[in-house]
């Protein structure tokens, strides 16, 4: 409370009432102010400012270094990615080549097999044709034989004299006709 402090310093106070304008206290205030300012200045320039400045510089350096390292790592990651993409593309090309090679090999094998099969088929077909012709020929021969024998038997049965040569000639003529 304001009234508490009133008694003690009453003697020093002016009638005017503004302690700020009591010039008798000015030397005291100015002296101690200068002491305080010099102390603050010494504290700052000798200890605080170099310390804070160093800390700030160190932090800036650390941040700059870390940023540079991060940039470098980013660059490395990019390079790795590029290498990966390159490897992927190479692998794709390689596999495409292998596929093409395999396809060509298979095609060649297939061609050979096809050709072999074709040859075999045509050989078999020829064989079959030959046998069919054989069978046909033998059948024709049999027919001639049967016709001659039948004609002979018929002639003999009808009481004629069998002349083998003329029967054969007659059957042949008939068969041709």
């Amino acid at each position, binding site marked *: 409370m304001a009234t508490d402090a009133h008694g003690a310093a009453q003697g020093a106070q002016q009638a005017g009432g503004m*302690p*700020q304008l009591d010039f008798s206290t000015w030397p005291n*205030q*100015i002296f101690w*102010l200068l002491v*305080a300012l010099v102390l603050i200045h010494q504290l700052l320039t000798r200890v605080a400012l170099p310390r804070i400045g160093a800390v700030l510089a160190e*932090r800036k350096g650390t941040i700059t270094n870390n940023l540079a390292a991060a940039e470098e790592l980013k660059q490395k990651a990019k390079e790795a990615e590029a290498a990966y993409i390159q490897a992927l593309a190479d692998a794709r090309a390689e596999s495409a080549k292998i596929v093409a090679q395999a396809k060509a090999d298979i095609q060649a094998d297939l061609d050979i097999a096809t050709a072999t099969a074709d040859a075999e088929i045509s050989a078999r077909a020829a064989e079959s044709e030959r046998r069919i012709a054989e069978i046909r020929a033998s059948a024709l021969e049999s027919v001639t034989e049967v016709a001659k024998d039948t004609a002979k038997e018929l002639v003999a049965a009808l009481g004629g004299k069998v002349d083998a040569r003329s029967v054969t000639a007659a059957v042949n003529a008939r068969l041709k006709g």
Partner: protein
Amino acid sequence: MAETGGLQIHPMDQFIVKPLFNDGAVHWYTPTNVTLWLLLAVLAIGALMVLGTRRRAIVPTRSQSVAELIYGFIHDMVEDVAGHEGVKYFPYVLTLFLFILFANVLGLIPMSFTTTSHVAVTVVLALAVFLGVTLLGFARKGVGFLGMFWVSSAPLALRPVLALIEIISYFVRPVSHSIRLAGNLMAGHAVLKVFAGFASVALVSPVAIGAMTAIYALELLVAVIQAYVFTILTCVYLKDAVGDAHH
């Protein structure tokens, strides 16, 4: 002094300078309440700026962070306002700022003594800035320092008039510089005491205490802003002495 019936309010008593240890006269060397609160300000500044930063951590602690914040704030202010050349005088500007800030804020502790509410203190600060800037200006620029009074961009006929006005305003600087700070602090603290006096009357005490709370908050703002204003004006004056003409 206000007097309301039996109520005695002495809002100016808080500013009385009195010896710490006896009731004798105040000599220039006598330890007084001024001495106590000035040294408390020094200790508080030391606690923040020296003890608070003792770990030198890359990732700062809270107190170190505040110290770095103040350092960066004032450093940027000096560099932005006074220019690159002004950075040499950064320690002096920071001394002023920290002293005024801590004196103002410590003065807001109840029953404390506000050193910066005394004209004696602020006049010394303002004169130090004024004389420092003037001497520095002449030392760096010689007679050319007077060129700032000669407004070469104005019409020739107006220049003498403008020079007169400039010179007057130059010499008014320390007055406004010091009275602004002391006046703000003194007025705020006196108003607080007046309301504190009214608070002892039961009828109006809720209002008075509410008003004290509000004014206290305002005074906290004023304490910081006046420290900032004093410092930035110091930088503006410093620019006249060290800055380039074309900035």
